[in-house]
């Protein structure tokens, strides 16, 4: 019971370059850019992932459901199985359950889809918590108010940026974590576990900086698309495609000295 399966990195030239950069004490932007480049074309293929697209679509719909008078019914229409008076954590759990249920029906689960699903749940928790000022014991009215605020152009930008920052961090560490622990040793590149944790924090900061570009266009896209006939799953997939393309360019730019 409790087994954990670990993975490896491919032994390709690009991955060897990534590892050389880490050992050579390169800056976080260089490591991030090289990882992005080495990992299957850096998120480009990811835009086709159905679970990622569905997750982003659902992220756009929850704030819109919060605009309606009957928030709970709105959530249920989206597939979120909630009680009559859900708290913040209940809605986040139901969001996760809704994505799971969709994938059970449609198939096509991938690691990337998992990362997106987790990043979305984490985003709703983190930003929802900021709005409700509490994590436990929130009322449905608190939750509705919090999620409704994400339906403005400005606040949806923040939501989208937070989501893509978390997704990108997960994406990069999905690969890097296969090797980084090997460099932790009293006489290694990371001389302590804390040093490894510092590297991860730096990577997190870099991802947040790099996703600024997402914040710049996502709010406008959300308002415009919603106004012009609503946000469909296809339109959400198109948004994901553009967002990932911009992100990839941003990472490449950030690596330049």
């Amino acid at each position, binding site marked *: 019971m409790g087994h954990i399966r670990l993975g490896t990195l491919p032994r390709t030239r690009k991955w060897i370059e990534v590892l050389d950069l880490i050992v050579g004490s390169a800056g976080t932007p260089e490591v991030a850019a090289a990882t992005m480049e080495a990992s299957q074309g850096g998120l480009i293929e990811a835009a086709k992932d159905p679970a990622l697209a569905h997750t982003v679509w659902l992220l756009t719909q929850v704030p819109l459901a919060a605009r309606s008078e009957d928030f709970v019914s709105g959530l249920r229409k989206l597939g979120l199985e909630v009680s009559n008076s859900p708290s913040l954590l209940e809605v986040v759990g139901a969001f996760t359950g809704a994505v799971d249920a969709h994938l059970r029906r449609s198939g096509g689960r991938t690691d990337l889809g998992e990362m997106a699903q987790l990043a979305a749940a984490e985003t709703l*928790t983190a930003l929802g918590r900021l709005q409700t000022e509490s994590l436990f014991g929130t009322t449905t009215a608190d939750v509705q108010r919090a999620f409704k605020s994400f339906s403005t152009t400005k606040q949806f930008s923040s939501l989208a940026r937070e989501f893509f920052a978390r997704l990108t961090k997960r994406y990069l560490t999905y690969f890097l974590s296969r090797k980084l622990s090997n460099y932790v040793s009293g*006489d290694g590149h990371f001389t302590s576990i804390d040093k490894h944790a510092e590297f991860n*924090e730096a990577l997190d*900061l870099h991802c947040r900086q790099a996703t600024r570009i997402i914040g710049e266009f996502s709010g406008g896209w959300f308002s415009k698309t919603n106004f012009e006939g609503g946000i469909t799953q296809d339109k959400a997939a198109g948004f994901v495609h553009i967002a990932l393309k911009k992100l990839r360019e941003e990472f490449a730019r950030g690596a330049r000295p």
Partner: protein
Amino acid sequence: MSNERVVLCGGLPGSGKKTLHLRLGRNRDNINLRITDITDKMAANMPPMLVDLLEVATYVYCADQATTRGGGGARNYGANWRRHFQFHIPVREPKLWSSKPVLAILRDTLGFLSDDEYEFTFKKLTDPPPVSQYLEFGSGGATGFKAEEVILVSGGIDSLGGAVQEAVVEKRKVALVSHRSSPKIAKRQKDLLEDLNKHCATQPFHVPVWVNKEKALGREYTQRTRSFLYAALATVVARIFDLWRIRFYENGVVSINLPISPQVVGSRATRTTHPQVLNGFAQLFSTLFQKEFAVENPFLWKTKAQVVQSIRDAGCGELIKHSVSCTHVWEMTTLKTHCGACSQCIDRRFGILSAGCSDQEDPAEMYDVDLLRGARQPGESRTILESYVRTAKRVKDMSEAAFFSEFGEVHRVTQHLKGMTVDQAASGILDMYKRHASQVCDVIAKGIQDSAKDISDGRVPASCLLILALPEEYKRPTTYETTPPSPVLVLEEIRDGETNQNLPARIVGSGRFNGVNKKIGSRQLFFICQLFGSTRTHYVDGEHMTVVTEEEAVQELLKWSKAGYLQFSGADQDKPAYRVQKMWGEFVRQIEKEKKLKNIFTDDHKDNKGNKLYGLRLQPNEKQILVPNIPALFQKPPS
């Protein structure tokens, strides 16, 4: 999905590249199921659907092992990890098994359990073999035994704890169902349960089960579906005793099994006894029986250390050493029963040490690698341990908001705990994980304390946990010869906007820095912290420097900004490097007003990758200006 498999069971005809044939029987077939010590008489009234359940679970378990997940690579985001199974199984009650609710629960529960996709087609089994073909009367058959509880026993610590709780503490009559996956494990289980008997008022009834299969069917070792087989076996036994409940015993941290590393996605962290899975099993069995059937884990809120402690409290500490938690069974020897490297060994040993077990109860020599002092080679051994401890260290100091917004997997648990609201469940999980994290960190702290002399003498390997876990601060060389003064100026005392207040401080590095009195503000403090805290050096044209790269300064600036020590203004947030450059100019102008500090700070250099460096020039006899902690740099002059 590329990893598809058509599984034809029970002799159903068909062929194809992706087809797998499984046939369950006694001698001539490729899977052999033996349930020991259940007599014909006990199983006389076993409903056909129960025998179906046994066979379905066995087929799922064997197909799982016969179909590879494609190794540990990251190709196509784990496309090979997830498989698509199309099962065709002849059963005695095809109508029941083909009903929509049963098909949906099977698909959903197994899909979550193993991260695979499932389709089932059930056909009428013609000429069904009698259930007796799976039964084997052994030496311990207990005619007339009436079990009050059926529990699963793997032979590890948690299930031992469950058996102790039920049979020793509560003195209940229990049936212990165990799966004997290998002869090595079988012997250990047998010995353990014989020793357990000595502590019980009523001897438990033991039902060992063997599932053997052709060698060619053993291609995948991860066995994520095994708990379905275990649950099915226990359910059959429970029904034989006319019970409507079975119990797994597993500590909550392993049961929920939040990932310890970002690469551990989906069921790469097992969901064997995940609350969602146990609920799924209960739902399946209840639907099949048309009556509520419960599948429980009474240890869900306990950590491993608490489970170990409960065994000791029951006076059964001596049994612990006979339990086996290690998954690397093939490495097991008589002396070294645990590899000490796999996640189960690490979890076990932390629990053991946290509970304060003696060496007689769990001898250190049983482990091939010592948890605290053993060298960890690069690879799985170091990755698992480092990730496990890093996660625990992080969780220990995490806010509740950080916990629930960093472990997204937890939201797959909170809705599946019966009798609790989601918020109550979440709060309980947080408490348990915090408790576990503290237990792990305390074990390390005690290990450092106990090994202080060996660490001081350099007699422990550089890759052992005691060294890996030492905070970074203590690994930096220092120019201090004596203990640095107590910090009297802390970062919290300086906030942005107070720059002009000029808090007096004394830079107490060493040598020429010692005793430099300087009124500083947040910008000076920022660069002093950066340079005096850096371990990076740069040597060019006879000049020796302690340096930080501009990127490092930028990252730190963002952290300071986040913490409120410095605030960005205008467009600076988007150009933090530009802000650092501006601050540096002001810093140098301010700091050089102090005579002793003139011309020692520089930004004239770049490293070999072209990164701009901010540096502190050192004298020939100074290799590096390093101090054990930042606050120790500052000391307010006496008023």
